């Protein structure tokens, strides 16, 4: 078996709140092979989101190591983490987080622009847009799109630069069951057709069932 795409050993993250140190991650160990669709579940405050923020380069680790594709990202500078977000990681958030002033097309294009890629999408990505079912909604701004459409645009934006990892934080948290199922199906299709590695946080066991594997967190640690 090849080396895991993500290797995490003894990962710790401590937030400073006022004069108090609050440990959010207390020694997380996790290995994620390439092309796996992994669900991470756990109660609020268990450290799921913090783990995502560290893997996604949104915040530095306080200790331990995180290797993505062989690169240790735990010691990256702010500029290094910016490069990581630009090239290796795509985010999907619970609240969609599309730029409200731009059309769906421009929301996707700006991710390409920031990454320094050609603004014109490639043929493979056109297929992805069809798979996502949003090709006919690209000229609309987020306010004119349903929640499900917004989340599918957010998924398109997250994978437009072909990142190594797609990090989805409660991607169905703001959707009804029908749209939730559609978004989860799309994510599974992306995983199966494109081999996209996906890490998904969810509270919903039905959503977790779409993944290959589920891990549980509690009190800043993996418990199973």
């Amino acid at each position, binding site marked *: 078996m090849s080396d895991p795409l993500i290797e995490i050993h003894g990962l710790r993250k401590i937030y400073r709140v006022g004069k108090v140190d609050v440990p959010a991650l207390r020694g997380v160990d996790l290995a994620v092979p390439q092309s796996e669709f992994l669900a991470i579940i756990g109660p609020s405050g268990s450290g799921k989101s913090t783990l995502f923020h560290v893997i996604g380069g949104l915040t530095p680790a306080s200790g331990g190591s995180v290797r993505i594709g062989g690169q240790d990202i735990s010691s990256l500078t702010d500029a290094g983490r910016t490069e990581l*977000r630009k090239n290796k990681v795509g985010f999907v*958030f619970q609240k969609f*987080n599309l730029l409200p*002033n731009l059309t769906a097309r*421009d929301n996707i294009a700006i991710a390409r622009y*920031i*990454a320094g890629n050609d603004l014109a999408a490639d043929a493979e990505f056109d297929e992805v847009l069809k798979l996502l079912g949003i090709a006919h909604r690209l000229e609309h701004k987020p306010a004119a799109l349903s929640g499900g459409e917004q989340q599918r645009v957010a998924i398109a934006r997250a994978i437009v630069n072909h990142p190594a990892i797609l990090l989805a934080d409660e991607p169905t948290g703001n959707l009804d069951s029908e749209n939730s199922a559609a978004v989860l199906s799309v994510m599974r299709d992306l995983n199966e057709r494109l081999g996209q590695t996906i890490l998904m946080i969810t509270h919903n066991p039905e959503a977790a069932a779409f993944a290959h594997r589920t891990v549980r967190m509690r009190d800043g640690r993996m418990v199973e």
Partner: protein
Amino acid sequence: MTARLVLENMKHKPMRSLLSVFLIAVPVTLILCLVGLSEGMLSDSAQRARGIGADIVIRPPGTSALTLSGAPIPQKVADLVARQPHVVQAMGMMVHPVSNVSFISGIDLAQFDRMSGGFKYLQGGPFRGPNDIIVDQYYAQQHKLHAGDEIHDVLNHAWRVSGVAEGGKLARLAVPMTTLQDLTGNTGKVSQIFVKADKPANVSTVITELKNLLPGYSVYSMDEFTSLLTVQNVQGGALRTFIDVMVGIGVVIGFAVVLLSMYMAVLQRTREIGILKALGASRWFILKIILAEALVMGVSGTVVGIGLSFVARALIEWLYPASLTQAITPLWWPIVGAISLIGVVLGALYPGLSAATQDPIEALAYE
């Protein structure tokens, strides 16, 4: 893509954008109006001085091209000057202020006609009595005067408008010199003397002779005299300083407007900044967007401000055609543009840097 993002951001809050542009335009217009009024009024004075047709002007001791007080020159000095070689005519003239920016001229109309070629009357004609007054078209327009009207608000004297003349010669008001001398207690005295030489080649010779003849007096060729009517010379450079102060205020206003506007924009867009950072946008990318938006507002504000200076000139011409003359000063457009841009860049730096250094997690959690 940056341009589209900046444009869409500005369109998203049109009232904030328009208000910012307008507030940047205001100091631009103020500076252009101030400079335009200064240069316009000085240029108008120079043009009217040239309209007299003299080659040389003699001013009393202790005066400059821009300062003149009372009528300290005995009228007989003009007769003395008239007898000098190469001098074909010397005309004494009295000038008296009637408001902060307006003067009345006391003239010997026959001599004035001979030197200047005379007024071109649009209504009425020359003086027919000692209490007659000739007004130029701009004064007549501003005060709604016609030939034959009586006016009482000039030196508290009852004048009859004998004629309305085309502008460009002398002050806007001209009365018989003896009447003005008597009314102001300057009988037999004049404020300045205009001299015409027999030919242009002899002007410098005549100036040299007159300087010898009248030590202490200021003797200028008309070209030299009008060239001294500049912003730098007004009140010993005080106008220049005033303009510089206004320019400084313009920078401060531009800075403050953009600082507040962009600070508000950054607060409103905290979450969007977080999104951009999650997509991998660098600090420079975020700062660039804020600076670009401020620059667009600065350039727009400058263009609007220049446009408003034309509106201001039209209003001034309509309301105060005789009192104020505003020039359009294209040479100042790049200067006010640079002033605006300095102000907006300085104003956008702090909000831009605070946006660029925002923590992406906190920004994404911002409601």
